[in-house]
């Protein structure tokens, strides 16, 4: 059995763990809120302008985090956009190099260089954001700001990113030099830096499988940790952009408060 087979066998389990976490820690809570807010609002009653504004302000620009300061906002933007774009490029890479292998996406061609550029640039953005988070988390220990820190999540994601760059650097170092590969940015720079020690056969396999397993395990971890805010926060912000839902929730809570309490026996 190859390492790739082991990876594919583990993936449905990791994703299952993610779904269980999302169900237990997000969907049942969403159900309770929907219960308090009445029901789903009819589609024709959705305030599309308010929804669009909430998406732009809360998800795209993250203005609420900007209120906490420039550094927390910069760090959060780097991590969230770095992660999202990297995930998108990962999907595109799998699609165009493995499942629908097209000529432009073969190793060294323009499409392949574009994918490598996108993967490495977004990975570097994410790496910078994570390093800022780690340093800032250590500096903010004990302060009010520390409640927003997620050191285990930061270290976990850092492990995924660093092993990815090291594996890629080793892979490039194992190949003959190619100037076009400079589009791979940090992966290329790392590969050139470690080229004198090439070839990396066993260590490349080790870093590659560690990266693949850590990335999959991180997806499972999302549903069970503070990282669930990746799903919960945008949902919550968009949810309460709708006046009908806000008013329904206030009405239900007020009705509950006005109900006479049942006598204890």
């Amino acid at each position, binding site marked *: 059995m190859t390492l790739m087979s082991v990876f594919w066998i583990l993936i449905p389990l990791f994703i*299952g763990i993610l779904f269980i976490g999302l169900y237990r820690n997000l969907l049942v809570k969403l159900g309770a809120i929907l219960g308090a807010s009445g029901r789903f609002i009819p589609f024709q009653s959705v305030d599309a302008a308010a929804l669009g504004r909430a998406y732009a302000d809360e998800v795209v620009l993250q203005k609420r985090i900007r209120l906490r300061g420039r550094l927390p906002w910069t760090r959060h933007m780097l991590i969230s956009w770095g992660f999202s774009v990297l995930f998108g490029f990962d999907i595109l890479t799998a699609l165009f190099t*493995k499942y629908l292998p097209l000529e432009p996406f073969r190793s060294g061609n323009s499409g392949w260089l574009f994918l490598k550029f996108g993967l490495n640039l977004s990975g570097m953005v994410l790496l910078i954001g994570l390093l800022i988070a780690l340093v800032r988390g250590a500096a903010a220990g004990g302060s009010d700001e520390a*409640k927003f820190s997620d050191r285990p999540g930061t270290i976990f994601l850092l492990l995924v990113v660093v092993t990815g760059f090291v594996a890629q650097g080793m892979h490039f170092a194992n190949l003959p030099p190619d100037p076009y590969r400079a589009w791979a940015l940090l992966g290329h720079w790392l590969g050139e830096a470690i080229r004198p020690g090439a070839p990396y056969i066993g260590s490349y396999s080790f870093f590659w499988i560690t990266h693949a397993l850590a990335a999959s395990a991180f997806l499972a971890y999302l549903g069970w940790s503070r990282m669930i805010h990746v799903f919960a926060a945008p949902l919550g912000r968009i949810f309460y952009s709708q006046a009908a839902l806000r008013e329904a929730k206030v009405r239900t809570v007020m009705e509950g408060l006005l109900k006479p309490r049942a006598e204890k026996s």
Partner: protein
Amino acid sequence: MPAALRRFAWWSFFVTEIGLVAAASAYVGVGTRDFWLVAAAAAVAFIAYAVAVRTTPAPTLGDTTSVQQRWYWF
């Protein structure tokens, strides 16, 4: 939990797991020993998910919006 949300929970799970098994089959082949191991992993995930859905208690609105959780939720 509203029926629409429950349906979403199940459909999103099924579509993702079936998609993963289909994607894996491109690597390990169809009907091979590794294919059946991937399918078994998906089946285990299904059983665990079904147990979670059946046994997870519904929280109150107070639990959902408690101060400890509010920072990442709303």
